[in-house]
C-alpha cells in the first residue's frame, strides 16, 4: 500500500512517520501500544463498572473462609472445616496427580504402540493402526465418559466380596475376590490399594498456613541424598578410570548407597502396609482410588498415547536407513544399533512434539468435569465458585494457575530438549 521508495530528505516531515522505514516501525509500535493500552483500560473500566453494578468487590479474602464441602480424593489433609484455599490446593494436587500418572502411562503406552506399529507382524501392525486411528478421531470426552461407565458397570460391588456365615459353612467362594495376594480390591466405587503406614513416623510440622508431613519429606531427602551420593561415587570411579585405566568395582557400593539408607529408615520408622478389608458398607483401610481418577487417567493416557505413538513412529521413520546400515556395517548388534544410533537421533525429532502432548494432557485434565473429578476446576472453578459467587476471582486465579503449570512444564521440557539437541557445530 505504501510506496516503497521515498528518498529520505534532510528535513523531517510528518509523513515520514508513515513512509520512511526508519521511523515507520516506531510509529506502528506506538500506535499498537496506545491501542493496546486503550483496550486494557476499556476492559478494566467495564469490569469495574460491572462489579459496582452487581455490588461486588474484587478481593481474594474469600479464599480464607470455611469451605464447607467435602472432597472425595485428598492428597493432603482436608476437612469441610478447611478454607477455600486449602480446597484449591487439594484440587491442584489432584490435577497434578492425574497429569503426572497420565504422562507416564501415555509415554509407556505410546512408545510401545509406536514401535509395534512398525513391527513386521501383520496382525499387530494392523491392530495398532486401528487403535491409533480410533483414539485420534473420536473426542476425548467420549473416551472419558466411556471408561467411567465401563469401570463402574463391569466391576463388582463391595458386597460381592462378603463371605456370609452361610457361605462360609457351605464352603462357597464369594462372587468377587481381591487381587494381587489379597491386597487390592477393585469395586465399582473405586480401587482399594494398600496404604503405607509408619508406627513411629516423624509427625507433621505445622507452619500455620500449611502443615508439612515430615515423614514424607524425610524419606524424599534420604532418597535424593542417596542418588546424589551414588552419582559422586560413579564420578569418582570414572575419574579413577581416566587416570589409571582401571575402573574400580562399584556395583555393590551403588546398591548399598541407593537402598540401604532408605531401608534402614523405613524399618526404623516401623513401615508396614495397611491392607484394605471389607467393613460395613465399604472397604476400609488402605487408600481408595476413586473411579473418577482412574477413568480420567486411563482415558487421558489411552488418548494421548495414540498421538505419542504417531510421534514416535514418525521419529523413527525420520532416521534414514543408511544410519542403521552403517551401524550394522560397524558390527553393532540390532539392540545396540537402536540404543546407540537410532534412538538418540530419533529423540531429537520426537521430543518437541512430545512436549506439546504433555502440555495437552495436562490441560485436558480439566475434562475431569465430565466425571465430576474434583481437580482444580472442580474445587476452585466449581464448588468454591458456586458457593461464593466470585466467578471473576476464581476464574482468573484458575487460569493463572493453569498457565503457570503449562509454562513450568514447557520450560523444564525445553531444558531437556536443549540437552539432547545437536550441539552447534
Amino acid at each position, binding site marked *: 500500500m505504501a510506496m516503497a521508495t521515498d528518498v529520505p530528505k534532510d528535513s523531517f516531515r510528518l509523513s515520514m512517520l508513515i513512509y520512511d522505514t526508519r521511523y515507520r516501525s516506531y510509529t506502528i509500535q506506538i500506535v499498537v501500544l496506545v491501542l493496546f493500552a486503550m483496550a486494557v483500560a476499556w476492559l478494566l473500566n467495564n469490569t469495574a463498572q460491572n462489579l459496582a453494578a452487581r455490588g461486588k468487590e474484587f478481593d481474594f479474602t474469600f479464599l480464607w473462609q470455611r469451605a464447607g464441602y467435602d472432597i472425595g480424593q485428598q492428597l493432603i489433609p482436608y476437612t469441610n472445616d478447611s478454607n477455600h484455599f486449602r480446597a484449591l490446593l487439594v484440587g491442584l494436587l489432584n490435577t497434578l496427580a492425574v497429569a503426572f500418572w497420565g504422562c507416564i502411562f501415555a509415554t509407556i503406552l505410546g512408545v510401545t504402540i509406536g514401535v509395534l506399529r512398525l513391527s513386521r507382524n501383520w496382525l499387530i501392525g494392523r491392530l495398532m493402526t486401528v487403535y491409533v486411528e480410533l483414539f485420534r478421531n473420536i473426542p476425548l470426552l467420549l473416551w472419558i465418559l466411556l471408561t467411567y461407565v465401563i469401570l463402574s458397570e463391569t466391576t463388582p460391588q463391595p458386597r460381592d466380596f462378603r463371605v456370609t456365615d452361610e457361605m462360609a459353612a457351605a464352603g462357597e467362594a464369594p462372587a468377587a475376590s481381591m487381587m494381587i495376594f489379597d491386597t487390592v480390591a477393585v469395586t465399582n466405587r473405586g480401587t482399594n490399594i494398600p496404604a503405607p503406614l509408619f508406627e513411629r513416623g516423624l509427625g507433621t510440622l505445622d507452619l500455620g498456613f500449611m502443615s508439612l508431613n515430615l515423614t514424607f519429606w524425610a524419606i524424599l531427602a534420604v532418597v535424593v541424598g542417596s542418588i546424589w551420593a551414588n552419582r559422586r561415587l560413579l564420578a569418582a570411579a570414572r575419574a579413577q578410570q581416566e587416570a589409571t585405566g582401571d575402573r574400580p568395582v562399584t556395583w555393590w557400593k551403588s546398591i548399598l548407597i541407593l537402598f540401604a539408607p532408605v531401608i534402614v529408615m523405613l524399618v526404623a520408622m516401623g513401615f508396614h502396609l495397611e491392607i484394605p478389608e471389607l*467393613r460395613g458398607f465399604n472397604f476400609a483401610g488402605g487408600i481408595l482410588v476413586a473411579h473418577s481418577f482412574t477413568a480420567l487417567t486411563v482415558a487421558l493416557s489411552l488418548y494421548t498415547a495414540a498421538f505419542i505413538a504417531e510421534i514416535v513412529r514418525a521419529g523413527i521413520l525420520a532416521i534414514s536407513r543408511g544410519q542403521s546400515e552403517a551401524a550394522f556395517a560397524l558390527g553393532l548388534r540390532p539392540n545396540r544399533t537402536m540404543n546407540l544410533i537410532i534412538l538418540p537421533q530419533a529423540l531429537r525429532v520426537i521430543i518437541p512434539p512430545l512436549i506439546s502432548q504433555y502440555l495437552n494432557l495436562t490441560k485436558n485434565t480439566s475434562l475431569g*468435569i465430565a466425571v465430576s473429578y474434583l481437580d482444580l476446576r*472442580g474445587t476452585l472453578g466449581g464448588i468454591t465458585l458456586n458457593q461464593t459467587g466470585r466467578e471473576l476471582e476464581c476464574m482468573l486465579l484458575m487460569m493463572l494457575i493453569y498457565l503457570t503449570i503449562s509454562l513450568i512444564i514447557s520450560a523444564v521440557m525445553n531444558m531437556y530438549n536443549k540437552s539432547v539437541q545437536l550441539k552447534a557445530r
Partner: protein
Amino acid sequence: MKKTVFFGALAATTLVAGLAGAATLDDVKARGELICGSNTGLTGFGAPDASGNWAGFDVDLCRAIAAVVLGDATKVKFVPTTGETRFTALQSGEVDVLVRNSTWTYSRDSELALDFVAVNYYDGQGFMVKKDLGVSSAKELDGATVCIQTGTTTELNLADFFKQNNISYQPVTVADDSEAQRQYLAGACDAYTTDASGLAASRATMPDAENHIILPEIISKEPLGPVVRHGDSQWGDVVRWTFYAMLIAEEKGVTSANVEEVLASTTDEEVKRLLGASGDMGAKMGLDNDAFKRAIAAVGNYGEVFSRNIGEGTTINLARGLNALWTQGGLQYAPPLR
C-alpha cells in the same frame, strides 16, 4: 470479508437481546419474548421433548409469566443453564428470570445480588437407599458411599449432617441426575442424596422401584423458587404475583377449563380482581388487566400444573405434601389480592 457477518451478527444480537437495564418488564415487552433460565434437563421440572418443546413444573411457571406479560404463553425462550452458570446468566441479564429448582438461601439472597421472589416448591434433602442394604435411618449410614450432585447446596447440607451426627461418609460427586441414578443403580454408591422430589422422581422411573426406599430423614429445608435480579422490584413483583395468581386460582377453584365460566358467573370479589373483571390490578403493575386470567387460561392454576407435571398419576408421582394449599395442611399460601 468474513468479519462483516461477525460484526453484523454481533450488532444484531446485541440489539435483539436488548439491554439488561433495570426495567426488565419493559425489555421483555419490547423484545416480545421472555427469556427463562431453565435446567439442562430434569425430568418433570424442565426438559425438552423430542421436538424441542419444553415441558415441566418450572417450565409452566415461565409460560405463565410469558402469558401475563406478553399475552402468549408460547413466547418463551428457554436457556438451559448448569448448576455453575445459572446465577451468572441471571446476573448478566442473559435470562430475565431463573426458574431452575434453585434453593433460596441467605447468602444467595444477599451476596449474589439476587432476589428469590416466591417458593413454588417446598423441598428438602433426603436419602434413597436400596432396601436390601438393611438401613432404616440416615444415621446408620456410617462409612457409606453417597452419590451427590456438584454445584448445589446439597453438598454443604450433606457435610453438615454427617458432621453433626459424628459419622463418616465417602462422597461420590456426579454431574447430573441421570448420571447419579446410573451410579446408584450400578451400586457405585450406597445412598443417593438430593432433593426429596428428585429422589421420588428417580425412584418412580426405576425398573424395580419397590426395591428402593427413601429414608425418613429430611436433612435440610430446600425452598425452590423463581429468581430475579436484585434491584428490579417491579419485575420481581410481576413474577411473584404471577405465581400467587396461580395459587389463588387454585384456592378459588378457577382452572384453565372453567376460567371463562367463572368470570361470567362469579360473585367473589377477589376472583373478579384476579380475572380482571373489577379493579385495576393488572394495570397497577404495568400489565393488562386480564393478564392473570390469560396465564390461568394458558397453563392452569398451581394444582393443575402440579398434577400435570409431577403429581400423582404422572410417572414422577409426587404427593402434594408441603406443597398443598394452606387450607389443606400445606405451606402454599398466597397473600390477598387486593
